[in-house]
């Protein structure tokens, strides 16, 4: 019988093409708008590393200006000074930990014909790869000895390895970054956590970096920094050394703490450290050290843009308006079918049979609206991309979940819209209709 109802729906939709098109458009536009906004929110709010998000903690120390909090709400700075980062690394109080910073390096290809080009880089400690579960295509990360011995080693992104080595296993090969040679120890497989949680300072939806090098080289090779640097007092003196010794914050710091006990111990360690520093005349602000796990950190860093959140109820209201329109159109359409409904009743259709028939018709409009709605959603996301450019380049992907959600939402909402008109249609008095002919 369902097949019969779908066929009747198809005939009816075709027969009443203009009205059907209006309804499909109304559903599609509502779904498209709603799903565009929902998708943006959904991707922003997604847990980027669900298997570990509860054991990875971003570390904050309040090294900021004694007279002026870093943020109005009193939260500590979101990055660390070089002095503190090194001290925490030396203490190794967590199960794993890494200080890190974005950098930017010039790649000098061996081939004299190809031009040098800029690559985004990240300077981190050996634990980085194990902490963040990076997938390796070839080789592995470097070890703690390499950090200590200032070894010039590099892990390449898959894309970079494709570009430099045609996708071959390049472990053991050398590449030139800036004016130094680095030995390739590993090549990552495709890796794009979304949001890029480990460093959201320059944009939570940036691409992951092309090359990864030991953090210890930042000082020894004076690698350029690529990210935010904030200073609450001027740097004492000139030169790189002076900058490293300054109170400027520019380093992200992550610790892996496997349970509550480790978390408590680590916080105690941080408090001890800061108290020690206080006696040296630093950290004039009240004790305010924090660790936030990945999802808490995404909240602290306001990764879900408040505009997007605000748009959510607006877009749902818009969908509602579209559906109210659809209800009106369906009502007109179904009541226009009163003679047919009366006839079907006379020929033996129960109210239930008619109810199902017209609900199926509403559902078919929903399917069509949903499919067009997915296309509109895709266009909407392209539009957002065009508006905000690179900042959201990786944000605007439609995954299967969202496509399914869009179609299901379209079907459910148009069936909901169809409920009242269908109910009205089924309760048409057949006798009165047949008599009036």
């Amino acid at each position: 019988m369902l097949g019969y109802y779908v066929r009747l729906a198809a005939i009816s939709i075709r027969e009443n093409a203009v009205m059907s098109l209006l309804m499909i458009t109304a559903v599609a536009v509502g779904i498209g708008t709603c799903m565009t906004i929902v998708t943006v929110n959904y991707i922003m709010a997604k847990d980027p590393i669900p298997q570990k998000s509860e054991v990875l903690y971003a570390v904050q120390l309040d090294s900021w200006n004694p007279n002026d909090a870093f943020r109005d709400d009193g939260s500590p700075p979101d990055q660390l000074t070089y002095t503190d980062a090194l001290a925490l690394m030396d203490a190794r109080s967590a199960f794993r930990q890494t200080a890190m910073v974005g950098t930017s390096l010039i790649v000098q290809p061996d081939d004299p014909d190809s031009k040098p080009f800029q690559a985004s880089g990240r300077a981190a400690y050996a634990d980085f790869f194990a902490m963040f579960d990076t997938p390796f295509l070839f080789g592995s990360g470097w070890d703690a000895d390499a950090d200590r011995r200032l070894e010039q080693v590099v892990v390449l992104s898959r894309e970079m390895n494709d570009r430099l080595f045609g996708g071959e296993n390049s472990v053991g090969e050398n590449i030139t970054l800036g004016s130094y040679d680095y030995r390739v120890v590993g090549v990552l497989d495709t890796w794009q956590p979304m949001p890029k949680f480990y460093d959201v300072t320059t944009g939570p939806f940036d691409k992951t970096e092309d090359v990864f090098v030991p953090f210890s080289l930042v000082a020894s090779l004076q690698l350029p920094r690529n990210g935010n640097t904030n200073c609450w007092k001027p740097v004492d003196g000139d030169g790189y050394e002076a900058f490293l010794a300054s109170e400027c914050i520019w380093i992200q710091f992550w610790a892996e703490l496997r349970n509550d006990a480790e978390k408590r111990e680590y916080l105690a360690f941080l408090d001890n450290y800061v108290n020690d520093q206080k006696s040296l005349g630093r950290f004039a602000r009240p004790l305010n050290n924090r660790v936030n796990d990945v999802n808490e950190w995404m909240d602290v860093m306001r990764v879900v843009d408040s505009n997007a959140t605000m748009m959510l109820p607006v877009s749902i209201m818009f969908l509602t308006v579209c559906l109210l329109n659809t209800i009106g159109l369906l009502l007109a359409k179904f009541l226009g079918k009163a003679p047919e409904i009366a006839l079907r009743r006379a020929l033996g259709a129960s109210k239930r049979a008619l109810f199902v028939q017209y609900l199926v018709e509403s559902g078919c409009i929903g399917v069509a609206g949903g499919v067009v709605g997915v296309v509109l959603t895709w266009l909407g996301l392209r539009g957002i991309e065009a508006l905000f450019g690179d900042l959201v380049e990786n944000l605007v992907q439609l995954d299967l979940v969202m496509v399914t959600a869009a179609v299901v939402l379209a079907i459910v909402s148009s069936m909901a819209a169809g409920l009242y008109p269908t109910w009205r249609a089924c309760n048409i008095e057949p006798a009165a209709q047949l008599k009036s002919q």
Partner: protein
Amino acid sequence: MLSMKNVSRIYRTDVVQTHALRNLSLEVEAGEFVALVGPSGSGKTTFLNIAGLLETFDDGSYQLDGRDVAGLNDNDRSRLRNEKIGFIFQSFNLIPELNIADNIDVPLRYRGFAARERKRRVDRVLEVVGLGGRKKHLPSQLSGGQQQRVAIARALAGDPGFLLADEPTGNLDSSTAAGVMELINEIHRNGATIIMVTHDLELAARAERIVRLSDGQVVLLDEGGEGSELENGAAV
């Protein structure tokens, strides 16, 4: 077959009450062919709708096949209509978007027949009404007489034991009307009970019995056939 006792039907609107049927009592035997006549507005269509379970009544009792219909719910009524009752309406009442075969198919669908059985029945009744070659035509592509024949075919397809026809020839010329009447006679010969509303005295005369309604009441019961007083032009 059909037994109505003191059935009343009152239509209430804001301003007036219309007694479409008042205390109407009527017995129709199984296999009988009854013609229903009476002036416009006398309640003929209302009677047919009540007899066919399309409409409820306010007072009295109605037994169909020995069953009191007052207690039936919507589902039961729909099933009875579907399995026992065939309607031929005052106008043709085909679904314009569906082709001829699909129109005839409608009651068979609700009856739950398998595809093969439905096709067999559709083909058979289309042969009976002489429209075997028009299966794929839309109603608008047929003449009025052909459309009425399709409507009759649809009523026949379910092999109804009880056929209710409301001026089946009202919109047809006399020779087409004769063809349609021939079909209805055929159904009657095959054993169906028939109640047919008509204004045409000649056609009414073909029935076994003529029932005249006036103002919602049965005013005259008359054996049909040649020489009845209706034939002589008593007011209709």
